[in-house]
């Protein structure tokens, strides 16, 4: 298996050693984030940049909290580009990065 793309250090700190809490947080992450990713891709395809910006904004803290380091900056850039209404190649590349990394994270977290 590839290296872990996520890091639970923040959650562990927050949990104070409460494993149930971490499990619950992981479940919640897996419950909501895949749907949000789908919405994000849909918004880009239909060129709805307002929704795109808003959803990026929502996904941002999840990526932070689960320490998915590689795309921490990308999701911020996506939010800004979305708000500026720039559905360009830069946005599309970054979206592809975020999508690929998140899918790996989902898989790894499910098998944790």
């Amino acid at each position: 298996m590839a290296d872990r793309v996520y890091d639970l250090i923040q959650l562990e700190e927050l949990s104070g050693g409460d494993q149930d809490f971490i499990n619950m947080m992981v479940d919640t992450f897996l419950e909501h984030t895949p749907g949000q990713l789908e919405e994000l891709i849909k918004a880009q395809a239909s060129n709805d940049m307002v929704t795109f910006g808003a959803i990026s904004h929502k996904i941002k803290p999840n990526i932070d909290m689960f320490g998915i380091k590689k795309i921490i900056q990308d999701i911020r850039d996506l939010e800004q580009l979305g708000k500026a209404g720039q559905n360009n190649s830069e946005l599309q590349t970054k979206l592809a990065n975020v999508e690929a990394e998140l899918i790996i994270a989902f898989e790894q977290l499910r098998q944790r």
Partner: protein
Amino acid sequence: MSLMKIFLVEDNELYAKATKHHLSLNPDNQVEHFVTGKSCLEKLYLQPDCILLDYSLPDLSGIDVLKKVKSSQPDLPVVIVSGQEDVATAIDLLKEGAYDYIVKDENSKERIWKTINNLRENAKLRNELDRLREEVNLKYDFSSIKGSSVPIKRVFKLIEKAIRTNITVSISGETGTGKELVAKAIHYNSKNKKAPLVTVNIAAIPKELLESELFGYEKGAFTGAISRRIGKFEEANGGTLFLDEIGEMDLSLQAKLLRILQERVVTRIGSNKEIKVDTRIIVATHRNLKEEVAKGNFREDLYYRLLGLPIELPPLRQRESDIILLAKYFLKLFLEENEMEEMRISEQVQTKLRSYSWPGNVRELKAVIELAAVLADDGIIEEKDLNFNTVGDELDNLVSEGLTLKDYNTKLINYYLKNHNNNVVEVAKLLDIGKSTLYRMLKNKELTVN
């Protein structure tokens, strides 16, 4: 510690759960989570202690929720938690009355923690302040002056008149009639009640110090004036200055006081700057100021200036119908304060209380009742529990009862009988009267033998 009800408005499930978990580490934090702004606004009637509000919500924007909260509950602190790192938005929100603005990043949980603790501390202080305010208001509510007799009702009417205006009030009355209570009732019911009531007891301050106490002084005004000090007149600015025992004021100071009352400005000692003061004056004295003017002890011009609305407090012996009412009131207060069982006052004691002359007035009544409550057995105050410790002339007190000579005779003989085991022979001998006289009086039931 106090329970803190926190409303968390956050549409990001993950972030909400993390925040809730973190805040719940303190069991006094009670967190309720809402996903939308609307659902939070609908539950405002539950009276949260604070709201943690996400700026971007699915239904309303953070600023809309903030405005709605502030319009219905202006004192409810709202902390904005936002992923928006935009200074302009933050400033707008703070201007609209947000308590704090916290950016969602790795430090946000510590900041939220700190903010909630600050709020808890604030809430505690605010509750304390509200409680104390309430207490003061209750204490000096009108109802603290008790009575339904004609003379006290006249006083109530005058107090009501004093409350409506800013007129100077002069209160006179024997010691213990409640002059200070009247001053407080006037101040705390007037429109200036939020400003201070400053009390100066003229008799309690050495006359050399009184001037600096009243008017204040500048640094270096005299030996020992090492710093500037504000006088009582300035301290009471906007409120009420209560000068108790005004009759004891020195003539030279009376002249200065008169000037201040006329010009409405004070000058601190050692300064030539005049400071405007807007203070209501209430004075009180147990002396008859008119007589003092005649004797040359009190300036006539000051007398008229201070007279304002005169309120004369009746002595307790002129309010006979209030005595039992007051006695029961003081007894109830004392029992409550000391968490004691209920107690009643026997008929004989009530009669005695009514016939006593009360030279110390209401203050004395209160002391007598409190002592009686301590001494009493079996939940009833009996004659043995009553102790009148009169300072004044015993004969004065006896005569002030205003009985006929025959009644005084009876009273005297009864007193002797009681103190000599109802031994008629002994009492007759002591009083140098015939035994037969006593027997006749007993037969006619003029005397009481227990």
